[in-house]
């Protein structure tokens, strides 16, 4: 039994493995369950995240791609747009109807033509350029604005921790 969702996910998986974007690896944890993926994202160069490899998990809804997946880092990521529990708060992961604050452009949000690849690329650029207008982690956002040195020190510490150093 294959739903259209798992078929599409399989296609995305195939596309990602035969033509992977730089610094990104992603795929289902097991091929028995297309709705749970694991992704590895390299820290973008020229940022305090450089050198790090950040594992994250992606959970897809049964009606994917009508609804977006949920993404959660599996290691500590000190970042204004990542909740302390690792959940990623980024506009591309928000369904179009779900915007009580009206701070996001509709065009930035989830649409069925988005893909895992685009999500992961967006997350990579989010690591490089935090959006502190709607922080998920207020402390990290304030530190990023006011005490950039300390912010970068914590981030580098997390990078080392994620590498097991």
């Amino acid at each position, binding site marked *: 039994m294959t739903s259209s969702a798992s*078929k*599409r996910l399989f296609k995305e998986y195939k596309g990602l493995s*035969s033509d992977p974007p730089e610094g990104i690896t992603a795929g289902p944890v097991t*091929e028995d369950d297309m709705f*749970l993926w694991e992704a590895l994202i390299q820290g973008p160069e020229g940022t305090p995240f450089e050198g790090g490899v950040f594992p994250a998990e992606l959970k897809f809804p049964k009606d994917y791609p009508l609804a977006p997946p949920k993404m959660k880092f599996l290691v500590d990521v000190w970042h204004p747009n990542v909740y302390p529990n690792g959940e990623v708060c980024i506009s591309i992961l928000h369904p179009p109807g779900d915007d009580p604050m009206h701070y996001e452009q509709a*065009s930035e949000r989830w649409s069925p033509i988005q893909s895992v690849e685009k999500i992961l690329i967006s997350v990579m650029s989010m690591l490089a350029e935090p959006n502190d207008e709607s922080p998920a982690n207020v402390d990290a956002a304030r530190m990023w604005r006011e005490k950039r040195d300390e912010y970068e020190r914590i981030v580098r510490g997390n990078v080392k921790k994620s590498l097991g150093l």
Partner: protein
Amino acid sequence: MELSHDLPDSTDWIDTSLPAFEPLEAALRCEVCKEFYNNPVITSCSHTFCSLCIRRCIGADGKCPACKSACQADKLMPNIAVREVVTKFQEARSKALELARKDKEDSETSVGARKRKVEEAELDEEEPVRQTRARQTRRSARRGETAGTDDAPFVILDSEEEKDGDYLPEGMAKCPICQELMKAHLVFDHVNTCTGEPGDRSTRSRKPSSFPTALQTRPKEPTPPTSRLSGLNYAMLTESALKKKLRDLGIPSTGSKALLIRRHQEWLNIYNSNCDASDAVRKSKRELLRELDEWERTQGGNANTKESYVMKKDFDGQGHAMAHKSQFDDLIANARKRAKAVQKSEPEGKTTREPNQEPQQQPHVDQSTTTQAPHPSTAPPPADAPAARPYEHNESALSTIKAKVDEANRTDSAFPSLSCEKSSSNDRAAKEAEMSEETTLGFQDPFRSPSRKVPMFALPAEPVCDVDSSTAIQ
């Protein structure tokens, strides 16, 4: 899951001599489902999607997925030009891909061969993209004669050629009688009427470049839908009125009102998208109902029960044992009866711990005895019970088991070796009594040690199931 690993995809072109076909094919695929456009329709904002995909998207948020402008399902128009292009491209695809792959292989081979055979390599490189099949055959035949070193690549080519001969475009299938190529969902209806003689259509579908479709006669579908269904104002309908509407449409009318609404919407999507199909590929209502049934199983009312994957960590051994307790009890009773009939006295030795308590002993099974029965809840068929463990008086078997039990207790392995089960099957008759006793005890496992996961389903060794704990690491 039935997903094959050779699902056609635009990235198939990347490793061929025609990488430029990758974006071409991507452009011929729907951005929502990533398949080739199926019944493409164009929106009022001039974006094209599969009819079913865009109808589902509009049902979800009423906007075009590409530009987010408001969209209405009744403004969708079939995009006939795209439909024709996609159909023709799909027909040509397998052949073109085969040639492009072969060409790439040939040019790689020739680069390797150049060191040895400069002349020949030059010949190969003359027009690497525009080789014809005849030319390749000639050349490969010649190569086969010339050098033994060159044999290997051509063996590969031949086998690949065979494989590609059986290649079916996505969604297509062959009639088992006349070998005619057609859309997979049409096969069943076709088989009923198939005369067994390959028609001229079959030659056409094998040679994509012959006549234009318009000149071919195609069989008409039995019930071509004529007009699109219109939506209902669900808020104005009571549940029973809605049920009646669904019954009138001939679709299932069970479930809550929310489910009825979702089912009705999906039926509109399926039905109306079929109206956007060309006459030749329009489906019968029966096929549409089958599609609705699939939706029901994956996303509708049955989704939760049928699609839940049982993870090892989620498997409730105790619950399973409780649910099937009566079956287990029957099996136990049977085994005991047989055991008594054959032999009353209990043998001394490791395998029987509590010989005097037979009928009531279920909760008091010795731990090591418990582990001896590897899969109590996986394999409870009574017929197998007598054959499972005839170890009585078999010292070597007993010692093997003891070792395995110790090992199992040490490592708490979820999969106690099956080999003891296998080795035992030799001398079943003599040891029947003993073995049924053990089997009996084995059924206690789920009750006794719920934490010990019994392999209910074959699961991958690397789990999924550590996700929770790994998230907790932070």
